[in-house]
């Protein structure tokens, strides 16, 4: 292994982190909630994709089923758990999010048992550039993530619905007085975030082919670290943060030891919070009283 290989691995993992971090950041941007259940949506997406593939469905159908399931799950969670609390203290929302996370993990354990399932190989092969072997999984992951991120950026920048999202995230009250349906906009944000999480789940399982009830916990937390590192609430921030975490992890695994990878990731979080509390691309938020 050499530096370039580690970097490619880092970008590969990092772009999955980025997809998940986007979900954290979009939701945070719009309802100022750290959606701790987001990681478990990945787990749900992975199970749906696993069972669909297991039933012999083609890959595309399995991915579509996984996306559809996660979108519905995300929207329902928001409607049932978060919406009634929107006007309550932020801490209630946060506790609820942790509760939903535990609920999903334990429900999955009850339904599917804690035994990991082996995710089938859906992307095969690879190729050589000179001496260097690059797997198709890496190529597909990076391309799919890049396309999704570019699409999302375009969506938020140029469409009516995207502008409504930005307006709601800047000033919810003013936005609804301009005729924007805030509930619908928030549902859409959860739908997009959860859909991205489903795709991230499939991509993740292509590299780490194990599906188990708590798989979303640590992975979700690391994506959250990426979100904080890049700047919570910022879409480009999620991408930058995700790639940085991925690369840092890959380099640690390559040059130090796999044991250190998580420690390095979390010390990144601590250092960022000390030096730049708003994250690399985050804006300083002045609380209005």
């Amino acid at each position, binding site marked *: 292994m050499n530096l370039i290989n580690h970097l490619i691995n880092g970008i590969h993992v990092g772009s999955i982190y980025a997809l998940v971090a986007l979900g954290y950041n979009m939701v945070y941007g719009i309802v100022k909630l750290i959606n701790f259940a987001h990681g478990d949506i990945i787990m749900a997406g992975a199970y749906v994709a696993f069972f669909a593939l297991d039933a012999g469905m083609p890959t595309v159908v399995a991915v579509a089923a996984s996306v559809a399931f996660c979108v519905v799950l995300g929207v329902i969670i928001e409607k049932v758990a978060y919406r009634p609390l929107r006007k309550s203290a932020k801490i209630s929302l946060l506790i609820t999010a942790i509760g939903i996370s535990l609920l999903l993990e334990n429900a999955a354990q009850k339904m599917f048992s804690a035994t990991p399932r082996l995710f089938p190989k859906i992307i095969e092969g690879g190729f050589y550039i000179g001496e260097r072997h690059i797997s198709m999984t890496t190529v597909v992951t990076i391309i799919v993530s890049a396309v999704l991120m570019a*699409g999302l950026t375009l*969506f938020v920048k*140029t*469409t*009516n*619905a995207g*502008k*409504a999202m*930005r*307006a709601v995230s*800047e*000033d919810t*009250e*003013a*936005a*609804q*007085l*301009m*005729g*924007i*349906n*805030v*509930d619908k906009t928030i549902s859409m944000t959860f739908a997009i975030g959860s859909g991205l999480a489903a795709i991230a789940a499939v991509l993740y399982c292509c590299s780490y082919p194990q599906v188990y009830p708590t798989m979303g916990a640590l992975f979700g937390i690391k994506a959250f670290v990426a979100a904080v590192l890049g700047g919570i609430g910022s879409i480009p921030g999620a991408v930058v943060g995700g790639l940085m975490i991925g690369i840092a992890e890959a380099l640690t695994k390559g040059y130090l030891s796999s044991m250190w990878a998580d420690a390095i990731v979390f010390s990144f979080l601590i250092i960022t919070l000390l030096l730049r509390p708003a994250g690399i691309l985050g804006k300083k938020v002045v609380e209005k009283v």
Partner: protein
Amino acid sequence: MNRKQERSPLVPVPSGFLMREEDVDKTPVLEIRHLGVDFGGLVAVEDFNMALGRTEIAGLIGPNGAGKTTVFNLLTNEIEPTRGIIMIDGYDTRGRKPHEICRMGVARTFQNIRLFRNMTVLENVKIGLHNEMKYSIGEAVLRLPRYWDNESISDMRALELLSFFNMQDMAGWKAGSLPYGAQRRLEIVRALATNPSLLLLDEPAAGMNPSETVELMNNIRRIRDEFSIAILLIEHDMNLVMGVCDGIVVLNYGKIIAKGSPEDIMSDPVVIEAYLGKADQ
């Protein structure tokens, strides 16, 4: 332009407010009956009645803390009333969400400017045009013709609205980087973009110098004439209120203490007392 040169005289209507004679037979754009709201045990607004003709400019004045902004928040249902009825164009607003009230034809500006500061001037106006856009997310993602048609129509409409205040050249600026006066004007343009029949202005002259205030007065009249809408404004600048309003409501401790034309209000002893306190005898 349907600029009205001569305006008919004011006549009293049953709700106690004055209305232009020409507006009396039409459904009032706004009718409020016995409106009241309590915050906990505190009565913030009590027995508030008024009606507003289709092209009326009315002022809502009163000392600080009298409940003026609360009335605005009640009108847009940001706060739900405890008692009473609000009718917009004859339709009851009870149980409507603020975005539905906006679609019923009420738009407002804020005391402390609340633009979308990180968006451009044009985007701010297009947020106001949000509900006119008719294309699905799918059409937007695939960039189908309906997306481009809608976007270019709304760009044109937004620029046209900006040109009302001669701001079309600032379309690409970040809203937060505009000078103060321009931000205030942009907030009005954004509100007008929602195609209201009633415009609520919360202290539009705050922070303006006398010459800017005079310009604002002309603009308020121009908005009324060219858009043919009713305007209800909260303002502390008495020159503006007296100069531009057809009728005035004076609020103190959540209750209406006087209603009438600017001349009546200026000479009303109850109003003078509320503002200046009772003279020691």
